């Protein structure tokens, strides 16, 4: 019997992450993917879409509401928590570690669901990595801006060159075992106080 393509509903308030997951699922050949960002009116949407698998951010505060709704559902196709039989403890751990929660309709074979959940997990992890890198890049940029300002202050107040100013900052940071951006920040703060 040819297996029908599964219908997947992705609920994620984070539009970027939802797009990444959706793209991944489509690339993997899943054509019936629906993305919902707002859980208001979700009962109606679920009734329309009749999803086989629901993927949701573990941290979504509305999960209690969704689970209660699934429990009350009188429909035959009632979603239950992923791997409720716990036959695959490591899969549950991987999902929770990644921040993924999934619900599948009762009776669906696990091997059909697993690739979808695995895809969601890997995309969640990829998104977290990207977000972290972006955060690091942002703080590096901010650090560089601080150092530039601190150099300017030193150059003006001490009449030294840019290179000498930088060396002074770096040496101070090393002596105090702190980041150069922290030293720069302290200097900017102190200079601001002295100017007042």
């Amino acid at each position, binding site marked *: 019997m040819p297996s029908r393509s599964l219908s997947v509903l992705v609920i994620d308030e984070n539009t970027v992450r939802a797009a990444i997951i959706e793209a991944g699922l489509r690339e993997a050949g899943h054509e019936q993917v629906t993305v919902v960002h707002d859980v208001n009116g979700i009962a109606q949407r679920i009734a329309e879409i009749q999803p086989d698998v629901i993927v949701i951010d573990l941290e979504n505060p509305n999960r*209690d509401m969704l689970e209660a709704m699934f429990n009350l559902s009188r429909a035959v196709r009632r979603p239950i928590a992923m791997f409720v039989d716990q036959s695959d403890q490591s899969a549950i751990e991987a999902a*929770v570690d990644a921040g993924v929660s999934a619900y599948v309709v009762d009776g669906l074979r696990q091997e059909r669901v697993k690739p979808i959940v695995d895809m969601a997990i890997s995309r969640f992890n990829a998104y977290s990595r990207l977000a972290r890198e972006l955060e690091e890049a942002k703080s590096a940029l901010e650090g560089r801006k601080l150092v530039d300002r601190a150099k300017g202050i030193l150059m003006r107040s001490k009449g030294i060159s840019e290179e000498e100013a930088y060396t002074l900052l770096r040496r101070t940071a090393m002596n105090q075992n702190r980041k150069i951006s922290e030293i720069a920040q302290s200097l900017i703060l102190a200079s601001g106080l002295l100017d007042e």
Partner: protein
Amino acid sequence: MSDHHITAGFLPLLDSAILVAAREKGFAAVEGVDLTLVRETSWASIRDRIAVGHFEVAHMLAPMPIAANLGLTPMRLNLIAPLALGLGGNAVTVSNALWQAMAEAGATGPDDPAAAGAALRKVIEGRREQGGDRLRLGVVHPHSGHNFELRYWLAACGIDPERDIDITIVPPPLTADAMAAGRIDGFCVGEPWNSVAVAAGHARIATVKAAIWRSSPEKVLGVRADWAEAHSDTLARLLRALYRAAAWCGEAENHEELAAILSGEAYLGQPAKLLLGALDGRLETGNGIHRFPDFFLPVEKAATFPWQSHALWFYSQMVRWGQVPHTEVNTEKARASFRPDIYRAALGPLGAALPSASMKVEGALTAPTPVGATSGRLTLGPDGFFDGAIFDPAKLGDYIVGQKPAGAVD
């Protein structure tokens, strides 16, 4: 350096206070416990993360461990409750429009749940006659004190929670917004979320948990059963730390400091002023500040003791509302979810006044009453239900038969 590491999940609610104080005031450290607290966004998340071992223990709705042991949760998980995180702390809050209608129908104020319930019944009947929509009331979880006390109150006032209104699940931090957006007409939730809705100008406190059932159970420390068994010493240390923290939280002179700690971004992230009212039992109801006796008790009246009669009352309500069939096996699973034996063993060395009994007749005390304790003096009560009913755990079967199930309220 500490060898006892415990990570606990919690939700941003006032009754996380004991856990927060155990960490912030050093009670955990004194017991050699390195306690890490992780704020969560849903009870489902707390359950999932305790199931996979991210948390050893967590702030939980008292019926959660019972529901887990009865197999009602989507993950197979055995939990125990060796300590309660206080008594009371909830309120029923309604929109200004609904309160207006209730007041016109005879509701007097937050001290009289019977009058408020009778008025609500009239409002519901009026809406039905006019072909209006059913009122929508929010609770935080199907297996929660909120759900059960709200339903208890409604049913005792002649309102069928299944037929006459819609009960919907709303996460605590979203209750005020849901009401402002008109998605719900009222809710039963723990503090500070009633005060937040009142302060935003949307709502009135209609009644409080302490008026529906005085000195009633609310949150517990939920512990993974297998972890508790393998780490009994670490758990005992944590229970001692929590008991001391509860005693600290119970001192009125500490309430301002506690409110300031809880207001931090990592904890509740709400103004300390909004938290202080509930700690002192003086809440802004939307019609002036009102004093509620025993609104939230962190330590007094054996507030941390895991009464098995509380577990059985929750079980009786799970049966009542069709969550689980009543059987002897289920009764025993529910009772054994609460573990006064572990509580006594851990707190014995502190010389704390420990109740000699593990169950009591709920609703029997009309005044503060000294009771049997292993050491020291212990006072319990009053603990009455607003409708004067008595729950005797020795007559659980009769109680279950006698309560009106869904669809049977006249």
